[in-house]
């Protein structure tokens, strides 16, 4: 199995032909993404090599505190990237940190307490990566949805405010919609799992030679966990963010 997964340096270099293919499409269609594609590819190579060595060390040391530090590092990074993509939303780093931190911690606690996972880096770190990146993407959707909804439904909000509604009452419909839209990708991927996609976790376990029925059990837990975390993150991010669209005089701040 390991031999079949061996990728030589030559093979790795040759695989850049795929990136060249993507750049060619961009060049032909004049989309203007060549620079982004090349930067993304370079970043992926550097980040993955670095994290590969870091993970090899962490897995080898197998220390509970180091595992916790790694979990905190991943949550921090996911929060920072969600904040960077929030388009200047007030307190977006704090909001992202709470949403991703609470969602991820709760999921890890349930998985460890139920005996599904052991607190060892080889089990905790990959799962944390999955949860926090899913949560980060969910929060990105929430931030975009809130901004669009507040722009599109500006007059409706103004009418409600003019009638004496507070920020929460005026935003109730938008909050419901943003949580629904934030959760939709996780629900959709849960619906189509096995039919459209074979998730990385399950495929990885099968690659490693684990019995498919065991891999599937694991994947079921992961899918349920991702839906739960998407719900928690959506809820926290929406409820902590909507007030950013109002000033102290309870007036809309968005044009």
């Amino acid at each position, binding site marked *: 199995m390991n031999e079949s997964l061996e990728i030589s340096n030559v093979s790795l270099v040759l695989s850049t032909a795929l990136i060249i293919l993507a750049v060619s499409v961009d060049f032909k269609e004049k989309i203007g993404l060549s620079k982004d594609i090349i930067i993304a590819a370079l970043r992926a190579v550097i980040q993955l090599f670095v994290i590969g060595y870091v993970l090899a060390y962490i897995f080898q040391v197998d220390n509970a505190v180091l595992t916790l530090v790694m979990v905190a590092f991943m949550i921090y990074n996911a929060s920072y990237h969600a904040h960077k993509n929030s388009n200047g939303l007030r307190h977006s780093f704090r909001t992202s940190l709470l949403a991703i931190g609470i969602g991820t911690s709760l999921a890890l606690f349930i998985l460890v307490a139920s005996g599904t996972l052991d607190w060892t880096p080889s089990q905790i770190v990959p799962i944390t990566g999955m949860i926090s990146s899913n949560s980060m993407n969910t929060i990105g959707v929430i931030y975009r949805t809130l901004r669009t909804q507040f722009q599109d439904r500006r007059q409706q909000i103004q009418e409600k405010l003019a009638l004496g509604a507070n920020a929460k009452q005026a935003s109730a*419909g938008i909050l419901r919609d943003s949580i629904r839209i934030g959760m939709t990708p996780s629900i959709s991927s849960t619906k189509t799992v096995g039919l459209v996609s074979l998730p990385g976790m399950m495929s990885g376990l099968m690659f490693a030679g684990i019995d498919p029925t065991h891999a599937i059990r694991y994947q079921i837990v992961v899918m349920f966990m991702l839906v739960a975390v998407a719900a928690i993150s959506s809820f926290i991010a929406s409820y902590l963010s909507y007030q950013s669209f109002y000033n102290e005089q309870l007036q809309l701040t968005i044009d």
Partner: protein
Amino acid sequence: MQTQAPIFQLEQVGFQMNQQQILKEVSLTIHAGESIAIIGPSGSGKSTLLKIIGSLLSPTEGVIHYQGQNISEIVATEYRKEVSYFFQNALLFDETVRDNLAFPALIRDESFDEERAIRGLEKVSLDASYLVKSVHDLSGGEKQRIALVRNLMYLPKVLLMDEVTSSLDATNRDIILNYVRQLNTEESLTVLWITHNNDDTQYFDRVLQVKNGVMEELK
């Protein structure tokens, strides 16, 4: 009436946006129960003035006192329940007329008074059957009349009307104008009414004109 303390006192109120002066040094005293028409060309600053009085915008200069208190120090939700702003093309939200008329009760944490809603609908020549109608099945005039009932489910002290009849036919305009005049006379509701129709001004105690952001009292 004039011996009472004013309900509004505007002192040197101005509003600037994107380095453009929309409203300049507006000083105005309004007493409870007065009816005031505001006229002036489009873009002159009338709506901005009304939005500032309705606390939907904050002045960039000057202060506004409501019943002796600076409005920036009053809780916005409480203020807006007493000083009610009515939009030019009011929007009905959610699904049915009932959803809209129940909203003022919902934000007060009270139960919906259906009898009061029906009485309100009848005042604007609509009936109880409208309660269950979808907001998408109404004409512009019906929407505007229902929005007025929504603003009046709990009678405010002040009603700010921002060209609310500008896109309506004569029948709808008369229904709204007459109902508001009746509330002004019988309930001492203070009314500020922006209009492009100079004929409307005859029904009001005072007439103000706003031109290039400067306010002048005509009557």
